[in-house]
């Protein structure tokens, strides 16, 4: 019995250690050419840009990364008091809304923002529309810290050019990213 308990304890410790070492299913691909980012590109095969994590701002984390044929989704969570998670969705097209155009985040990208509320919370949807695809960011920040949080959101999610990704994949891994 003692041996069994020891084995059980070792198994539990081992599985805990494995759990700690295993990559999280929340990991969103970084902005670097590789299979991980290529998978996101494959979800919307005609999109000119691919969303990725450029540099995760301090206090931010990612969750629930899902990549399916036709759509990639993930969640960004700032740890700032009162902040709610930002839901990021990458799909072939955005719903036509009453967004206000703002500074484009990359060449050929139409960035717009549609606010649902300004006070007491700063909430709405930021959209990056580009040929073949669109990324939306549904945010809900507390009024006040929202200025810094919006800047951090902008810095966190980057848009990686599909053309650049295709070239780097071909050069580095011999993979031809279609189409």
């Amino acid at each position, binding site marked *: 019995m003692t041996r069994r308990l020891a084995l059980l304890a070792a198994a539990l410790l081992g599985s805990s250690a494995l759990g700690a070492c295993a990559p999280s299913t929340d990991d969103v691909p970084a902005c670097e050419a590789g299979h*991980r980012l290529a998978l996101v590109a*494959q979800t919307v095969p005609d999109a000119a840009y691919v969303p990725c994590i450029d540099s995760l701002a301090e206090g931010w984390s990612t969750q629930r990364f899902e990549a*399916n044929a036709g759509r990639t989704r993930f969640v960004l969570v700032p740890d700032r008091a009162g902040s709610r998670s930002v839901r990021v969705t990458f799909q072939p097209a955005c719903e036509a809304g009453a967004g206000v155009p703002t500074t484009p985040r990359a060449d050929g990208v139409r960035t717009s923002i549609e606010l649902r509320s300004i006070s007491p919370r700063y909430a709405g949807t930021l959209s990056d529309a580009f040929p073949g695809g669109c990324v939306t960011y549904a945010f809900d920040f507390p009024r006040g810290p929202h200025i810094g949080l919006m800047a951090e959101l902008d810095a966190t999610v980057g848009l990686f050019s599909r053309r650049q990704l295709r070239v780097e994949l071909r050069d580095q891994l011999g993979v031809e990213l279609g189409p």
Partner: protein
Amino acid sequence: MPTIPSGQPEGGVVVMDGPGSEAEAARGIAPVLSTSPVGRRRRPSGEPPPLPRRIEPSTKVYAVLGAVAGTLAVGLTVRPVLAAVTAADLAVLRLLEDLRFDALSSLMRSLQALGSQWTVRLVAWATIAVLLGFRRFQHLAAYLLFVLGGSLVTSMLPFTIGRMRPADIEILGRWHGYSYPSEPVAELALVLAGITCTMVPKGRWRTRTAAGAGVLLGAVAAAQLYLGVDHPTDVFGALVLGWALPVVAFRLAVPEEVFPVSYRRGRRAHLDVGGRRGEAIVRALDHQLGLDVPSLEPFALEGSAGSTPLRLHTRDAEGGEGPLLFGKLYARNHLRSDRWYKLGRTVLYGRLEDEKPFSSVRRLVEYEDHMLRLLRDAGLPTPAPYGFVEITPEREYVIVMEFYPGASEVGTAPVDDATIDEGLGVVRRLWDAGVAHRDIKPSNVLVQDGRVRLIDVAFATVRPTPWRQAVDLANMMLTLALSSTPERVYQRALLLFAPDDIAEAFAASRSITVPSQLRALLRADGRDLLGAFRALAPERQPVPIQLWSVRRVGLSLAVLALAVFGVSLLTAYLQVAGLL
């Protein structure tokens, strides 16, 4: 120890010391002369035991495939290897792409749907329900551990490898997440392996089920490749992770020879004693005890949960019919049952007496053999011991003892005063020897030609707690009263025991101290025999039998914590595996 008389060639007639010695003959135990084609011999170093642990060839193949898949998984995290493997994979997929046409694509999409999460959920829950329904708890535990654990690995591994879907191939089917290993194939393979190993009896049906699973998996895998959803290595990794490794794990955790899948009636503690095992038992009895056993058969299975009882037909030196012998096959499942039983008793009732579990099957069988010899030496009417044989080292042993032909359970017919006196005399002798039998009940008290025999001494203990000895008396009196009256049994008991002894016996008796068979018979009898004996005996305060200790409290808390942890883990597994 066996001796070979001088001038007797090895392998000929062997005179067994022990039960067959002159000293024992003088004590009324018949000497046993036995012959066999080979006879008693020492197993030389290097010779396999009678029933060596057999590793199926497919297990070795699966283990090798597991190593290959593991190496491949590690390789895929290294860019040059990933590039080379992917190039090879894509070459195969391009060939398949050339075969595409509309009708075939529609068919492949339909086949891909067979590997959907709903199929997996349906099969998994159905398996769990059947295993629960048939109370096949060992298989259920293994199923939950391997299938749900496998699902957990299957859902985590893609994030570790992070492989994209096939590049530059038009993907025609549905997909989700990273591609290595192929999740639909792995999860379908897991539940199919679970069904095959836990629900289907070994033999023709299991072979057919495995073939059917192979066809189904082949169809889904072909669809995944044709539709360009997975790379060939994704499917290979999934089949190894979902089929090969779980099958090996099931074979190790619930080996067929110990936990056979069977839908026959009867206790599942009983092992199949036909085939290789039966031949090994006969060979072991021949080589190790010098017993020529032309045939053996399961015997009185319904009365035994802790071993597989056997009736052994022997042949004497002249080739005629020898004495019938009784054997008990002990294996690791019996050892596990013993451990769980004792753990349960310790938690529920404290250590009623020495409940320390046995550390191995060898220790268990050695103990019973020792008790048989001790009780024989104390003059108890217990079966004469013949020793035990090793079938598979540390795993399976058969203990052999005298068989009582024509004996019947006490109480199958009304008992007379002589039988009552003999039964009570047995307890008196147990007391005098400082031993408690601890399992006195009708199926262990036999009457043969009017003589009382006491069998199944596996639970007996030397120098037990005093109340435990008293309980033996109470259980014997209750057993005898079932076919008589409490007044009559009490009057006969006064000839051997003091009234205070009897009072103590019934003051120590509780539901837990009465064996389940006796408890059931008492209920069926309808009379309040326990109350009647208490009324007859002098009044006495109940004897406390619950023992509280730091160990018991700690063990109870540990069991509770483990149960909570287990439920939490199971819930998490079910969620990750997509079953909730």
